[in-house]
């Protein structure tokens, strides 16, 4: 048959319509593939690994500043967690002007820690263009808690972020929990 009969014309238009629908579906599937792409391994590793390593490195650091120890006390390597953070937790009620056992650069240990931690994070994470938030909290007996110090509070709250997981350190005053968030 040289020319299609009128009844077949309707069928052919239907086939055309079906082809258009198939093409649109393929296009949408293609777009969905882009949209649902997984976050690259490197990005996840970089944020999680960096947050964990940054906090553990920070806590282990030996502080070398003038005036931390009195002249009469025995010379020791002052660790940020074991000595200064513990001291800050114990005398946090008297911060920032009151008594603390260690007075690095003439400052209360909580004030000194806030400045030092802020400086170290800024020199590393800050210069690499990472956004971060740090909190150090004292969990008091009875369920209440007191913030010892924090860096960039609230910066990562509503963003996609990765946590270092809390770094817990027991002291006589209570449990000190420190956590670092990296968001970008």
């Amino acid at each position, binding site marked *: 048959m040289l020319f299609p009969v009128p009844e077949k014309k309707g069928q052919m238009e239907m086939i055309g319509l079906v082809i258009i629908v198939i093409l649109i579906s393929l296009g949408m599937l293609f777009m969905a593939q882009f949209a649902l792409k997984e976050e690259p391994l*490197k990005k996840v590793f970089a944020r999680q690994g960096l947050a964990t390593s940054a906090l*553990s490195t920070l806590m282990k650091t030996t502080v070398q500043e003038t005036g931390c120890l009195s002249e009469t006390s025995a010379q020791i390597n002052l660790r940020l967690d074991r000595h200064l953070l513990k001291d800050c937790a114990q005398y946090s009620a008297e911060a920032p002007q009151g008594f603390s056992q260690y007075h690095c650069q003439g400052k209360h240990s909580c004030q000194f820690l806030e400045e030092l931690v802020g400086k170290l994070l800024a020199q590393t994470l800050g210069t690499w263009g990472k956004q971060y938030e740090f909190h150090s909290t004292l969990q008091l007996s009875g369920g209440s808690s007191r913030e010892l110090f924090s860096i960039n509070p609230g910066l990562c709250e509503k963003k996609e972020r990765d946590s270092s997981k809390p770094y817990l350190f027991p002291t006589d005053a209570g449990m000190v929990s420190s956590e670092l968030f990296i968001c970008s």
Partner: protein
Amino acid sequence: MKNKKAQLHMTETIAVIFIFFILVVFGMIFYAQYQKVAFKEKQEEILSTRAVQTTLRALYLSELICSQGEAEPEDNCIDLIKAEAVQAIFQKYLSNYYFHLFGYGRLTLHEVYPQEKELVLYEKRRVENLANESTFMMVSLRDDRLSVGTEPSYAYGYLLVEVYS
């Protein structure tokens, strides 16, 4: 009259086929562009994976990690005494061992606090590097020469791992 109708039908068919082929050509161009981008992304992903693997290898390398006799090695910690001595060993056994571990790349140790200094541990460059991927990992730098009593000294630093394609 019948001839004219057939001609009209032919023109319509040719127009539909023409538009169809234009769409196919557009699709092919789009797909080729996508493939080009996907290929580049895949290359970057391979380089990123290599950067991650190199970082982990460097962090857990017994030639660098902080250890104390038979005790468990410390995570995220590099022994400065080992690091200062390891450059010569990396250089000596570069082609028959360390190149297989790190490939084309550069490992640099940076101390941020209390002093600012850097130490290049490993470096192997190609004549022409096509791309470069950097990974930072924070590390404690233990120095037993500065120990007071049994308490070692830990500096705050980071390991910069750059891999070249």
